[in-house]
């Protein structure tokens, strides 16, 4: 056992995981953040993808103790801040994926959403081919992928619309 302190979804969390425990199991079993899904458990399916210090990583390919002192964002942390504290509703990407029917059984969804969040953060103007490549490390057995790509493209488009609107309103006196 090792005592660790880390930031998860903006809050300081502590735990005493066994040194051998993966970050994915720690998030689910110790912190009750079961939105992170564990599929293949050896880094192939992408279902356990979380964001570590701003970059997408596979939480099954990291030990929990390696996340000490780091900032982790899971699917639970993506919803916007609600009126009553905590997270409520859906973010832009989540809403766009909802609107595009990007989910069926939902098992792979948290991994896709986290990977797409990290990717759109760095590549807000990504085209379809770039999105396909960025998501090529995530496996979905239901959708055939097209609806997922559609959802991420729609989110990128909505983000652009929002971005274009903001500077205009600032420029006007």
């Amino acid at each position, binding site marked *: 056992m090792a005592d660790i302190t880390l930031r998860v979804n903006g809050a300081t969390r502590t735990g005493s995981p066994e040194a051998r425990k993966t970050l994915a199991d720690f998030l689910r079993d110790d912190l009750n953040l079961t939105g992170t899904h564990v599929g293949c458990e*050896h*880094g*192939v399916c992408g279902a356990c993808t979380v964001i570590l210090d701003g*970059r*997408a990583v596979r939480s099954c*390919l990291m*030990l929990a103790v*390696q996340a000490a002192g780091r900032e982790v964002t899971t699917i639970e942390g993506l919803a916007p801040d609600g009126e009553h504290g905590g997270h409520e509703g859906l973010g832009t990407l989540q809403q766009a994926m909802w609107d595009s029917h990007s989910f069926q059984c939902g098992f792979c969804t948290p991994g896709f959403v986290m990977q797409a969040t990290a990717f759109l953060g760095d590549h807000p103007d990504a085209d379809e081919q770039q999105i396909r490549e960025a998501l*090529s*490390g995530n496996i979905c057995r239901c959708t055939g992928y097209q609806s997922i790509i559609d959802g991420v493209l729609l989110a990128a488009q909505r983000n652009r619309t929002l971005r274009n609107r903001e500077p205009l309103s600032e420029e006007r006196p």
Partner: protein
Amino acid sequence: MLAGGQSLIPLLALRLARPAVLIDINGIDELSGVSAIDGRVVIGAMTREYVAEESGTVADTVPLLAAALPLIGHEAIRSRGTIGGSLAHADPAAELPAVARALDAEFVVRGLSGERVIPAAEWFEGYLTTSRRPDELLVEVRFPAAEDDTGVSFHEVARRHGDFAIVGLATSLVLSGGVISDARLALTGVSDVPVRAAAAEELLAGERPSTELFDEAARRATADLDPPGDLHGSPGYRKTVAAAVVRRGLRAAADNAAKGSN
């Protein structure tokens, strides 16, 4: 020894590796970093692949390495995976071993008996096996800076973007006045180690790029290959793909060199 964990943790999860002791070297800051020293780019073993991918020094000085890095696994793998980890793991299907072999990189290992430098030609001994001794740690890898008029390509055939390629090729050509003065080719996925195509390199040196020349280079590069077969491709298929990859890789590298000199 745990670096980025993108190969070792799957091996642990699948119980293919069951070490009694695991040492995590992620906390050693001195093992990370990219620097240009005396015509070489020195990369610390713990340098993450995405850091090298985003490095201006790597892009300007070792263009073949820069071409290979985006092809390694997927983005989330490169967030954690390290340069030294991939080269110490020595998977013959991986990109970095072929780059190191093509460029004659040098491996610096440190152990109780001191430090030694191992040339790439002696580093890769077999499948997942290097000449590093059990009491040694890979601390840095040195890549020579590319000459002017160098053209590079990393060309591979994979079933899906980010997968291990069925066959891949690291190519570096130096074109002086339209003539190839130096050719370096290293193949992935055709043996238990990355393979330099020496017969093709000899043929190419002193010649002008042409389709006929590259066809003949592909024949020579693959004549003596005896690739493994698996569910992704039979030995014969791999050999056919290797020849195609050599032709395309050479063409891409020649075009890249021509573009650079304009």
